[in-house]
């Protein structure tokens, strides 16, 4: 607990860290439209590329006659899946599909398949695609996973007998796949016996809708090959593949030093780190055509999942006080199409809500059903996805026993070190105390409170652990150059103000202001501050804190060296100020407010900018101690967060208004409050959207997704979102920079609003809780 390992981890006085309203280092570029995202790049003489996209949810291309398309003026190249260049292409990284990079098989309507057209402009590409004569073999599809689960269901991926999701936290059952179904089971204790012995047993079901949170900027890249007098022939310039420039380079056998990219702006990622084909194909096409090639996707072509559909059937046993002794979770989860992430499926079993409870008898049993619905990339904001099955357990136990769910949560949460640890978790208790105050918390049973306007009032509460980025090391570098502190980084910029957190820590440690830390973006640099949103950059900031102190030592040593061995007087310019530190030792000096000062005698000082003309470079490669959540996966607890919401439900119209959200979170220590607040708002709005508005709709007959556009798939707007009251508790019980941990995306939820609706009207409505569903639940429609 706490930052006991890192230098100055116990710092008490902060001048920069925790300050509000420090502009982001690239905010001016973003606000003024100067910032360029991948989709914004255009290179002189470039061509455009478009993929053939499948009109069928499950089909194979048997043959393509491209003669008419080839004859179209302006068409420069047509590449088929069986072209040797295409066969040789291998996906980068571990999370891509395991089939060929592009083949003649389509397991989702709208997915890239079989053919790429390269032409003078996008209109010609589209015209050429229309002129292709494609022979399809169409198979039955699966867009309803409950049907897809059946043994006689059509296969969603006839060519692909394996589940491809990588299991980081939990293992799949080692048994042959049955139809579309892979299985994952995790068992702890004796669930059947505990259930039998329980005083009360409750069963309930949760439905998680598929939820999109597409990256705002449509994916796109532009690439060209060029010769360079310094690096020789065959250099690759690619824009739009920001985070994965080097891995795209590796796809094409180009070493890192010959892969160029100047853009840093990547758009909102929301943990969607999956590269799209449009971001990987342009180097090949540019090589084939000898010209720069751009490939971009339309919004409807990039409407991917942030959360897979899932049905969770729960059974819990508990005693008369509400202490849960048995949890039996059976889920049916969408395994999606080829290359779907295993977050939201098997991975959730290894790290989830149940392990935060004292309950020792837990069974998680999951059927993962391949489908033709779509793909979830790597990870989403709702992580893990079954968290609110635990939230709902607490609510239901409270309902059953006529108690406050906060008390039930407190009773069930285990202590800091293990599930058997009965001690309280300080962070949790402090969050709850503040939360009760923030919300004027006064619990009522479901359906018992009406507002003066006749609407029903409902409230809900949930908790989560505060995770931080736990798996990366950081290669930090800082320079003292011409009297300035420089923080070089490759970026990228994804909206989480990560480099800013790092710059604030550097400023703190070096005794300078935030504006005095110059951030230089350069793709050649190795430092990447990325490490989770909402102050999740606490891990990189920990490493940067070490680096800053290495630089500080170098600066002080150089200052003393300058005093001991002053340089000969210069004929140019005014003489430098006298260096009063002759004979001093490093430990005698400090840097305070941009001055080097003697600790014992602050009247002896020298402006930092004048300390030395040496160019000093400090590096540090490392990472903070392992995050507690990653060690314990819920069985060890340090920093926690709590969230609350109040709703009003109109029984006449079925309309739900979120009256307000409340958040009391303990990120350990708040590094950059302005962005932390904003990201807390963001997760609440994500949560509101997926519980009240958002849902994919499929045509069951054709397998076509009907609403992958922003007209029919409604995201919350300015007038839709609820007010969010926030309060931060700072226990410093995390173990990244200064005891910070971060909140990351742990507060995004799938059922807090839905539970509040139940508390209002006493009946369950699956998300999205649209007015028609509410009225139906009330027996009025």
């Amino acid at each position: 607990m706490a930052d006991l390992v890192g230098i100055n981890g116990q710092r008490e006085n902060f001048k920069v860290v925790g300050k509000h309203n420090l502009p982001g280092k690239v905010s001016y570029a973003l606000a003024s439209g100067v910032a360029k995202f991948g989709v914004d790049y255009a290179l002189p003489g470039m061509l455009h590329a478009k993929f053939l996209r499948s009109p069928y949810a499950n089909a194979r291309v048997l043959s393509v006659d491209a003669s008419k398309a080839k004859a179209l003026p302006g068409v420069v190249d047509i590449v088929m899946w069986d072209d040797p260049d295409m066969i040789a292409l291998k996906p980068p990284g571990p999370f891509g599909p395991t089939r060929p990079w592009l083949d003649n098989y389509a397991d989702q309507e709208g997915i890239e398949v079989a053919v790429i057209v390269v032409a003078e402009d996008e209109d010609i590409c589209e015209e050429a695609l229309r002129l292709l004569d494609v022979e399809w073999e169409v198979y039955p599809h699966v867009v309803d996973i409950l049907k897809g689960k059946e043994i006689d269901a059509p296969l969603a991926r006839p060519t692909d007998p394996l589940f491809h999701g990588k299991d980081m936290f939990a293992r799949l059952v080692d048994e042959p796949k049955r139809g579309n179904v892979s299985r994952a089971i995790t068992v702890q204790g004796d669930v059947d016996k505990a259930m039998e012995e329980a005083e009360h047993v409750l069963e309930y079901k949760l439905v998680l809708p598929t939820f999109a949170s597409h990256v705002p900027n449509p994916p796109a890249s532009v690439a060209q090959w060029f010769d360079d007098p310094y690096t020789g022939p065959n250099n690759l310039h690619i824009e739009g593949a920001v985070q994965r420039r080097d891995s795209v380079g590796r796809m094409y056998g180009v070493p890192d030093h010959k892969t160029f990219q100047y853009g840093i702006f990547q758009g909102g990622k929301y943990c969607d780190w999956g590269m799209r084909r449009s971001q990987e194909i342009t180097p090949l096409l540019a090589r084939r055509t000898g010209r720069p090639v751009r490939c971009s996707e339309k919004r409807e072509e990039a409407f991917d999942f942030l959360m897979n559909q899932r049905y969770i059937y729960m059974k819990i046993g508990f005693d008369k006080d509400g202490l849960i002794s048995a949890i039996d979770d059976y889920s049916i989860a969408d395994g999606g199409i080829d290359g779907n992430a295993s977050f939201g499926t098997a991975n959730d079993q290894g790290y989830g809500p149940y392990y935060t409870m004292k309950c020792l008898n837990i069974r998680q049993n999951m059927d993962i059903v391949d489908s033709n619905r779509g793909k979830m990339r790597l990870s989403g904001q709702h992580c893990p996805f079954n968290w609110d099955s635990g939230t709902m357990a607490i609510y239901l136990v409270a309902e059953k026993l006529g108690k406050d769910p906060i008390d039930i949560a407190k009773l069930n949460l285990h202590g800091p070190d293990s599930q058997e640890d009965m001690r309280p978790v300080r962070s949790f208790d402090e969050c709850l105390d503040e939360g009760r105050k923030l919300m004027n918390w006064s619990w009522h049973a479901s359906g018992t409170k009406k507002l003066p306007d006749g609407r029903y009032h409902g409230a809900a509460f949930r908790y989560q652990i505060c995770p931080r980025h736990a798996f990366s090391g950081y290669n930090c570098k800082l320079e003292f150059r011409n009297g300035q502190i420089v923080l070089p980084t490759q970026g990228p910029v994804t909206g989480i103000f990560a480099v800013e957190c790092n710059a604030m820590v550097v400023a703190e440690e070096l005794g300078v202001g935030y504006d005095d830390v110059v951030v230089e973006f350069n793709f050649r640099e190795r430092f990447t501050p990325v490490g989770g949103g909402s102050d999740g950059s606490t891990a990189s900031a920990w490493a940067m804190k070490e680096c800053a102190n290495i630089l500080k030592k170098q600066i002080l040593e150089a200052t003393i060296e300058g005093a001991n061995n002053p340089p000969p007087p210069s004929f140019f310019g005014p003489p430098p100020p006298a260096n009063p530190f002759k004979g001093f030792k490093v430990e005698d000096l400090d840097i305070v407010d941009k001055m080097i000062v003697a600790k014992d005698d602050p009247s002896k000082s020298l402006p930092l900018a004048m300390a030395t003309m040496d160019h000093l470079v400090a590096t540090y490669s490392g990472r903070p101690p392992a995050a507690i959540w990653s060690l314990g996966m819920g069985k060890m607890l340090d920093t926690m967060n709590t969230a609350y919401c109040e709703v009003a439900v109109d029984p006449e119209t079925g309309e739900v208004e979120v009256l307000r959200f409340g958040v009391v979170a303990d990120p350990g220590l708040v590094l950059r409050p302005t962005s932390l607040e904003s990201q807390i708002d963001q997760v609440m709005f994500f949560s509101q959207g997926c519980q009240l508005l958002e849902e994919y709709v499929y045509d069951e007959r054709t397998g076509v997704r009907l609403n992958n556009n922003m007209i029919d798939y409604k995201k919350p707007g300015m007038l839709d979102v609820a007010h969010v009251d926030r309060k931060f508790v700072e226990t410093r019980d995390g173990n990244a920079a200064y005891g910070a941990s971060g909140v990351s995306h742990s507060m995004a939820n799938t059922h807090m609003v839905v539970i509040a609706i139940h508390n209002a009207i006493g009946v369950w409505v699956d998300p999205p809780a649209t007015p028609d569903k509410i009225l139906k639940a009330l027996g009025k429609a």
Partner: protein
Amino acid sequence: MYTPESTQAAAYQLVNSVTSPMDQFKCSVCSSVFANYDSLRRHYDTEHPHDVAPVVVALHLNGKHCEIVVNPHWTFQRALQYKFGLTGAKHMCDKGVCGSCTVIIDGRSVLSCTTLAVEVAGKTVQTVEGIAADPKWKPLIDAYCKWDAMQCGYCTPGFMVAAKNLLDKNPDPTEQECREALAGNICICGTYPRHAQAILEAAKEIYKGGNA
């Protein structure tokens, strides 16, 4: 390094580099380049008789008179990117839903993804770059940056243009008026509460002394 000054200068440079896109009369079918518009037209008549020839559109863009040769079906957003090199009008939805592509045409906020370039002929247009290059609006940019009224920043230029257009019409808006003026802009990152805060602060600075 994007300082307030360097960014303003960059916006100014972008605005001023759009003076002569007529330089290149390029066939969008086969990429042949011609010396003037008449030659390009003749090329279409003879070589691509089934394709619709581009047309000349003249407009006032960020205070400059400009002419472009553009295909009649091109959206104005596309023309801004490919003819003028201005990418501040972003496209998120391409369907007139999200407001990311907002520009001001003859004093009104307009979605450039659903406006044809030919519709803009003879009109006065202001894009986010034009706003950012104008020192008068620096307080608005400053306030957006100070309040983190952006996360990934992709939607931000659209919000910025809508906010500027609001302040053009209403120098002293209420918080609710700010929210309503920006109701057509979608921010996937959920920065909504930040905008009114920034606009209200900027309005005070821009119109201090009542010089609306």
